[in-house]
């Protein structure tokens, strides 16, 4: 107690000291928290290296063997011709095969039971065929008709050509589709059947060569013919045709590709329309669409003529 009495500190100064220490401590703590939780992590994040841009070479290696696009190259082969006797008339094995293929390829539009009411049917105009009734079949419902439809599609509708399915499988589909409709399909045209049988006998199915996509990129990039950019005349050239070209062309590189790709498409107006339709991505100015026929012919003549000149030497 004597010690305490000899110290000059009063009660008030002790409270003040406590308060001061508390204020200082909390200030320091807040500062540390601010820097520790916000500023320092943000700075570290800033300094993290940016993700590497995708490079061409290791793409195949990095995605590994799971990538379908990088499966090893395989040589194509020809499957032997189909014996018509095995596919021209329905049998249980063929119908079972047809059902599997139908579920994979057809039900999205034609529906599970072929009533033309699949999930995607609502988006199609005209609507997909209803296989369960005899009305409105575009090509008819005989064996050869359905085979043609599956093989080539129906132009102007959502029906695509399923030419990638092997002919025997297409026949399985034909029989399965016919089995969905309970109506009388009528007599077959023997001539059409004979032609179909001949077609099967004469030609097998070709399975093409396959190569990894990275290799295809390499091949196609190497084969790519570089089109030199259009040489616009210098700004000093104030002639009408030079001014016209400068007005109509915004990107000489792209315009050169466009000219190379489209000049053989027909007459002047078609070419001019094509050039205006692709603007400005194809190197031409959108405003060029407003040029008149004479001006377009001037441009086409100047560009095509120059290509001819370039071809001469």
């Amino acid at each position, binding site marked *: 107690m004597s010690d305490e*009495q*000899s*110290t*000059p500190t009063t*009660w*008030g100064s*002790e*409270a*003040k000291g*406590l*308060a001061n220490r508390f204020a200082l401590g909390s200030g320091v703590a807040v500062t540390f928290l601010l820097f520790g939780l916000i500023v320092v992590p943000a700075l570290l994040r800033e300094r993290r290296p940016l993700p590497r841009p995708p490079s*061409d070479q290791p793409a195949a290696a990095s995605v590994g063997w799971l990538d*379908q*696009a990088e499966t090893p*190259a395989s*040589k*194509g082969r020809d499957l032997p011709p189909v014996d018509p006797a095995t596919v021209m008339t329905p049998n249980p094995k063929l119908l079972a095969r047809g059902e599997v293929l139908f579920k994979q390829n*057809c*039900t*999205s539009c034609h529906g599970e039971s072929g009533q033309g009411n*699949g*999930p*995607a049917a609502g*988006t*199609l105009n005209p609507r997909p065929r209803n296989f369960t009734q005899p009305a409105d079949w575009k090509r008819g419902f005989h064996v050869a008709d359905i085979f043609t439809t599956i093989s*080539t*599609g129906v132009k102007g509708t*959502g029906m*695509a*050509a*399923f*030419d*990638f399915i092997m002919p025997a499988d297409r026949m399985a589909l034909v029989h399965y589709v016919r089995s969905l409709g309970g109506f009388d399909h009528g007599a077959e045209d023997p001539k059409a059947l004979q032609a179909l049988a001949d077609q099967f006998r004469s030609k097998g199915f070709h399975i*093409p*060569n*396959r*190569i*990894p*996509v990275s*290799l*295809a990129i390499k*091949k*196609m*990039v190497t084969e*790519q013919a*570089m*089109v030199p950019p259009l040489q616009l005349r210098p700004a000093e050239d104030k002639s009408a045709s030079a001014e016209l070209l400068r007005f109509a062309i915004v990107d000489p*590189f*792209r315009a050169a*590709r466009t000219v190379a*790709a*489209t000049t053989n*498409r027909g007459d002047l107006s*078609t070419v001019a*329309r*094509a050039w205006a339709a*692709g603007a*400005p*991505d*194809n190197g031409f100015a959108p405003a060029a669409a407003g040029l008149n026929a004479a001006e377009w012919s001037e441009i086409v003549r100047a560009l095509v003529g120059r290509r001819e000149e370039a071809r001469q030497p």
Partner: protein
Amino acid sequence: MSSGTFAVLGLYSEAEKIVDAANQIRPHKLGRLEAYTPYPVHGLDRAIGLEPSRLGRLVMLMGVMGAGLALLFEWWVSAVDYPLVTSGKPLFSWQAFVPVMFEVTVLFATFTAGMAMLFALNKLPFFGHPVLHSKAIKDITRDKLALSIEATSAAFDVEAAHQALIDSGAESVEIVPVPTWDRPLSLVGLLRTIAAIVAACVVAGAGLYAAEKLMPIVPPMIHMEDQPKLNAFRESSFFPDGRGMRPAVAGTVARGHLPPAFATPEEAGTLLSNPLPLIQAIAERGRKVFGDHCAICHGTVGNGVPLLSRAYGGKPGNFLSNEIRARPDGHYFGVLMLGKNAMPSYAADLDNDDRWAAVHYIRILQRAQNAKDEDLP
């Protein structure tokens, strides 16, 4: 005994007397002079030797610092860290920084004024001032004026202070001891304070909740809600077509969105050609676009065997079929712009170069799945 004394108090009953007494005692420098009066007394501050407050200078200093810091910060943000040209003005446009500088100046100045006044100058918090426990406090808070000589060092002379106060005409003199307790901030006290704050919050919250639930709420200004105007997406009886929104003038085109010059993919196929050269970078861009947007339905190799087939039962186009391979580049571009069958339009999701790069990549996939004999390694 001196260290046990907080102050010596002398009581006076008239304002003039305490001022005179203070003027008389101050030159002796016995201790810090302090006065407790029930009302303000003119001249007493000078008499007890109170200097003009430093608060003004502090506020000025911090205000200028706030302005400077704000200017520095705004310069760093808009001219160094993230340079952004606004309306063609220079990066360092100090005129635009003035409002924020003003705000920060006020912020720093007001906080300095409040905090410095409370903590630095008035030395708060000060729990239980010893004078509050003196006998004189009743008189001080009624009609008496007290002059106190506070001990500032161990050499404080209680007797001299006592005598000086009596000499100056104090009616009574009291020695105020230092309080005996040594832990003014006890844990119990803190907990009680916190509990009291929590209880106050709960009571206030419950009261507000009850008031809001039980009493009718009268909107203060009904005229703000009642605005006779046309809402763009509401119906309206003002125009004959019953719509608030006016249709755009015929032929209007959104800025940066040239409408396609074709109506069908077939037409696009006859008009357009791919303007991008097939170089490595374009192929990689096409691979990315195809992977991001197309592969989920058309399959990784474009064979129309979708990754999502089980989920949505679709049969997307097979890019490897002879029919689709025979189509021109423009046809693919047209389908991307307009959609086809169940496929939606991708006009809004991709830009034109992305589309053309994807067309290149589809051609690459077709080549990979239908390679020439000399391509085989």
